[in-house]
Every structure is written in C-alpha cells, then in structure tokens.
C-alpha cells in the first residue's frame, strides 16, 4: 500500500511512468526484456542521464545551464581534432577535456555569482560563444576520427560475462557518476545547494558561501557534459550537431523527475529516472511505428502531461495535508528551547531538515 502511494505521489510518478513505458516496450517487442538488450538501452541512456545529473545540481540551486549542448559538441570536436590516430594521446587529451570543461563551468559560475548576471543569460552567451569558437577554430568542418582506444570508452565494454553477456563501460560510468552524485547530495555541499535554491537569502544569512557553492554546481554540470561528450564520441562519432538540444533534453529529464525549476526541491535519482523515461519514450515511439514526423508532437504532449500530473497531485496532497504541521504563531514561544536551537544550529543541519521534509 505504501509502495502504491509512493508511486502515485509526485516523487514516484516518474518511476511509475518508467515502469509503464518499459512494460509497453516489452509487450511490443518481447526481446527487449533480455539482459543484453536492457544493457544496450542503458548504454544509450548513459550520455543523457549523465548530462541530467549535471543539470540537476544547477537546477536544484535555482539556476539554468543552457551551455551543456554546446559544450558537448565542443568537446567532441576537440577530441576529434586532437586525439587523431595516436593512442598515446588518449589520456592527455582526456585530461585536457576535463580541465576545459571545468574551466567553462568556472566561468559560467563566476559570471553568474560575482557579476550577478542571470544564469539563463550567462549560459546562453556561453552556448553561442563555445559553439561559434570551436567551429571557427576548425573552420566549420568537424572532421577527425579519434583513435580506437578513445572511442572504446563510449562503445566498448566487458565482454563474455555470464547472464548479461556484455557490460558497456558507459553503464559503469553512469553508475559511478550517479553514486558520486548521490554521495555529494548527502554531503554538506549538497544540503547547502538545496538550501540556496530554496531560499538564497536565508541560506546566506545562515552562513553559506553562496558564490562558491553555486560555482561548484556549474563546474559539476560542465564536467558532466564533458563526460557525456566523451561517451558520445565513441557512440555517435564526431559531428557538429552531436550535442544539439542536449540542454533542453537534460532540463526536461530533470523536471520530469519532479525537480522544481527555480530550485530547492528534488531528488537526484528521480532526475536520472527522468532521463530513462525520455529515452524509453523515444524507443517506444520508434517501436510503435509512429511516423518520425509525429514523434516530436507525441513527446511534447507527454512531457506536458507528466509535469502537469505531478504538479496537480502535489497541490492536491498539500491541500489535504493537516494544517497542524506548522505551529500557530502564538505557540512559538512555548516550544521547547531545544527545538529552536536545533534548527538554527548550522546551515548544514538546517538544510538537512529541508531535504528530509521535502525528500525522503
């Protein structure tokens, strides 16, 4: 009963949707349920899910990152041009890409926090500048075919395993990145980030170094996009439109996962589940034989419906919740002194309280 209630709650809606979609795919195409096929599916989701993890950190802090798609394209083109057919260059170029990604995130973050430019505008400018800059550098032709050792990261994996037969590297990378993300959200940094997204002024009064916390969120987002670019080099090859639209897909996935645009609410696992839902949706539309021209329309309807559903359920639940949750104003002085002391003890603890009531 409890499981059912969680599933129809806004937090669980994305998992319910995922189960429904996967079951529908399996009915239409029974082969999908085989472990090998499932692994292929997860492999295809990995780049989107990793970008969504990065976007989650930015959105939870109440910001946007529109530069992710351009950054992916830029990194793919950098890889294509610098690695070449030389296996020895794989590791140095990989390091260079990570440093470049972190730098982009740092610039995004500092412009947003220190210059107080809205992140929507900062990352929009970065989106234009990055793509234009890389295309200018390469003369508009995204050529180059990175060495096989580099491409193996995205397309290769451990073969000849029992049961699943093939375990792609990208699945392992996704799992690792998600685990890292979950760990980070449980650290004080993650709590402060959520507090900042919920109420920046209160978080600042509580002692949060908001500029550095927000900047780190942008760095995480940019490094995620870099990682996704590395996977896409192997999976999709070098092409100037590889990363196009990824920022919107990532934002959609995160919002489908119940994360509130504007910050302060959301669960990282649900955001990743949102990415799985989107990819399952594409797959289902493909298998169901819906003409490719109509796919966009169906996708649009489902996105709106899913977000509207979780919004409506959330409001309904809030209305029906007993009003006694918050004490009447007059009662406050009578509350035991320990309770007040606890909530205002430290920003990390205060933030923890926020996540607990909203999240788990």
């Amino acid at each position, binding site marked *: 009963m409890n499981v059912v209630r969680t599933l129809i709650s806004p937090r669980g809606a994305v998992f319910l949707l995922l189960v429904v979609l996967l079951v529908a795919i399996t009915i239409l195409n029974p082969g999908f349920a085989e472990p090998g096929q499932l692994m292929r599916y997860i492999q295809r989701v990995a780049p989107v899910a990793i970008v969504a993890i990065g976007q989650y950190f930015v959105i939870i802090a109440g910001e946007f990152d*529109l530069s992710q798609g351009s950054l992916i394209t830029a990194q793919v083109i950098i890889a294509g041009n610098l690695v070449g057919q030389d296996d020895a260059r794989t590791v140095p170029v990989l390091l260079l890409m990570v440093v470049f990604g972190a730098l982009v995130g740092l610039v995004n973050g500092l*412009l947003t926090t220190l*210059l*107080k*430019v*809205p992140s*929507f*505008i*900062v990352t*929009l*400018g*970065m*989106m*234009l*500048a*990055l*793509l*234009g*800059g890389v*295309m*200018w550098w390469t003369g*508009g032709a995204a050529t180059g075919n990175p060495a096989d050792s580099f491409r193996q990261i995205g397309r290769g994996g451990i073969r000849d395993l029992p049961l699943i037969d093939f375990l792609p590297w990208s699945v392992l990378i996704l799992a690792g990145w998600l685990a890292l993300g979950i760990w980070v959200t449980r650290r004080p940094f993650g709590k402060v980030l959520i507090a900042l997204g919920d109420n920046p002024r209160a978080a600042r009064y509580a002692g949060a170094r908001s500029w550095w916390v927000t900047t780190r969120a942008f760095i995480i987002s940019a490094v995620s996009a870099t990682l996704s670019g590395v996977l896409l080099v192997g999976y999709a090859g070098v092409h100037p439109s590889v990363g196009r639209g990824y920022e*919107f897909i990532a*934002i*959609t996935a995160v*919002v489908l996962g119940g994360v509130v*645009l*504007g910050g302060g609410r959301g669960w990282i696992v649900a955001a990743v589940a949102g990415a799985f839902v989107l990819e399952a949706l594409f797959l289902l539309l493909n298998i169901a034989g819906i*003409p*490719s*021209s*109509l*796919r*966009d*329309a*169906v*996708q*649009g*309807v489902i*996105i*709106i419906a899913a*977000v*509207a559903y979780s*919004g*409506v359920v959330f*409001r309904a639940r809030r209305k029906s919740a007993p009003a006694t949750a918050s004490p009447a104003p007059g009662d406050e*002085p009578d509350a035991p002194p320990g309770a007040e002391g606890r909530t205002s003890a430290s920003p990390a603890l205060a933030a923890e309280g926020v996540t607990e009531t909203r999240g788990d």
Partner: protein
Amino acid sequence: MKRLRIDSTVIVLAILLLAIVVGAILVATQGRSFFSPGNIRDILTGMSVLGLVAIGQTLVVLGASLDLSVTYVMSLASLIGATTMAGNPANIPWAVTLTLLVCAGIGLANGLIVTVLKVNGFIATLGVGLILQGVLNTSFQGSAGSVPWDFQLLGATGIGPVPVSTIIMIALAVLVWFLLDRTRTGAHLFAVGGDPEVARLSGVRTRPPLIAAHVLCSVFAGLAGLLLASRLGVGSPTVGQQGGYALLSIAAVVLGGTLLLGGRGSVWGTIGGVAIFAVVDNVMSVMQVNPFLKDVVRGVVIVAAVAVYSRRAIVRRRTRFGPGGTRTGGDAAALAAAPAMAAASAALTAETDRGEGDGR
C-alpha cells in the same frame, strides 16, 4: 524627482549609444559610412522581426513565464499565411486574420497550460513547441504557398530610410506600452509577475493577465512570421528555428532590463536591447566577420551588456508603482517599524507573563 534616476532603460540606451559609436568608428575604418541611408535601413530591417518577437516575449517575461514556442509559431504563421494567400491579393485580409487567430489559439493553449495546469512556462512552451514541430513536420514538406506582390511590399518598402515593417513594430510597441502602463490588465500583469501570491491576496485574479500575455506573445510571433513570409515570398517550416528567435528574444528582453523573474521591466528597454543586437550584427556584416566568430561576439555582447547593470541593486530598476519602487519603500518601512514592533512584542510577552502569574 529633481535628481535624474538612472533606471535600466537609460543604461540600455547608453549601451546602445556606445555600440553605435564603436560601430560607426569600426565601419569608418572600412571606408564605409555607418549613417548612410542604406545602412540605417539594413539595421532597422534587422530589428523589425526580432523586435516583434521580443515585444511579445516582454509581456510573458513580465508575468514571470517564458515562451520558447515562438520559433515554431513563426514558422507555422509564415506557412498558414503564405498558403492561404496563394498568390491572390484578395486573400490578404482573410489570410492575416486566420493566421493571427491560429496564433492566438496557440497562445491561449500556452496560457492555460501555464496557469491552470501549473506547468512551468519553460516546460509548457517547450512541449507546445515540440507539438508544433510535429504538426509542421507532418503537414508541410519544405516551403509552401506564395505571397502576392502587394504583401511582399510590406517587407520591401519604406518611408525614406525607415522600412514599413519597423514602423509597424514601433507602433505596436507603443500599443503594448499603453497596455502595460495605462490599463488595468497591464498593472495586474506586473503584480502577478512580481509575486503571484501577494497579487492573489490583494484581490487580483492571477490567471487572466498571464493568459493575455501568452496570447499576445503568440500573436506577435505570428506577426513576425507573416513579416518573414512577406520577405521570403513563401512560407517555410524552418524559418523560425533557423533564426533561433526564442532564445535571442529572451536575451533581448533581459538585455532591456526586464527581470527574468518577472514583475519589473519595460517595452522600451526591450526595443533598446533589440537595437543593440541589430547594430552589432550590422557592424559584423560590414566588417565581414567570420560567421562562426559572429556567434562568439554575440555571446560575449549578451553577457557583457547584461553584466553592466546586473551588479546594481534591483531596487534601482523601474517598477510599476511609484518612483521609489515598492521594494525600497517596503524595506524602509520595515526598518522604521522594527523598534516599535520589538517594543510591542516585549510588552505582549510581559503581559502574558503577568496574566499567567495572576492565574496561578
């Protein structure tokens, strides 16, 4: 009011002046004149389409929403207009009416999804945009229809160096300025954009102004689409997407000093923002800058221009209610009232204690 208040519109105009001066010098180094009638006509022509979209976008952003579907609305409008006219001048009034009605319908859908279903404007209009993309894909293969010569004149002729399309754009800007500054709907839109909850508690019906803003935004995008059709002579299913008008119009609105969070801003700032874009684009065209490098410059200009005044306190920005702005007034009043309130609460506590003491 003796002291000249520096509000964001003034800053935008100053940046525009700076852009014109720098542009004129740069153009002069190429041995051309920036202020030749031909060049001025080019700039104004470049302004009119983005200007129309941005005026509509201003309304939506003031209401604390976004409209990412404008690009698809523009493409659809150009197609509906061109196919309905079908080269016959007698069809022009009917075609324009039909196009604008369809656009108003799309805007109504946007507005209802945002207000009634409470889907975030970002996601709602992204979804509606995807649906429109699907419609465009299924209904039209490539360019269609034909625009009669009489209608093409709209995009081609002008009074002196001023094109007719720019005159229409400015006239509509005046209309929107009147709507925002002199009508109840405008005042309510500012109130709802600033804080929907406070507006609701003040007795403002929060839905109608935002729905009206969305309807008008789509109608303005439809007008921009018709203008593009009159220039191209045909309707095209990709004309809006190619220009990237959705993000550019939002950038122009923010550049014009309108808060992305809603509630503060003006149409004239937006027109200034659009003019800055047009001047920068024009100078780059005259200088024959590499097209990829153009994007880099655009990105830097967007961020730099917004950064100029973003560091200033938000209270300096133009507000709807009174010269000082509600925010400063509120803060000052709260500060002034603080000692009195502290005294009152102390008195209350003392009284309660005495009351309890008497009871025992």
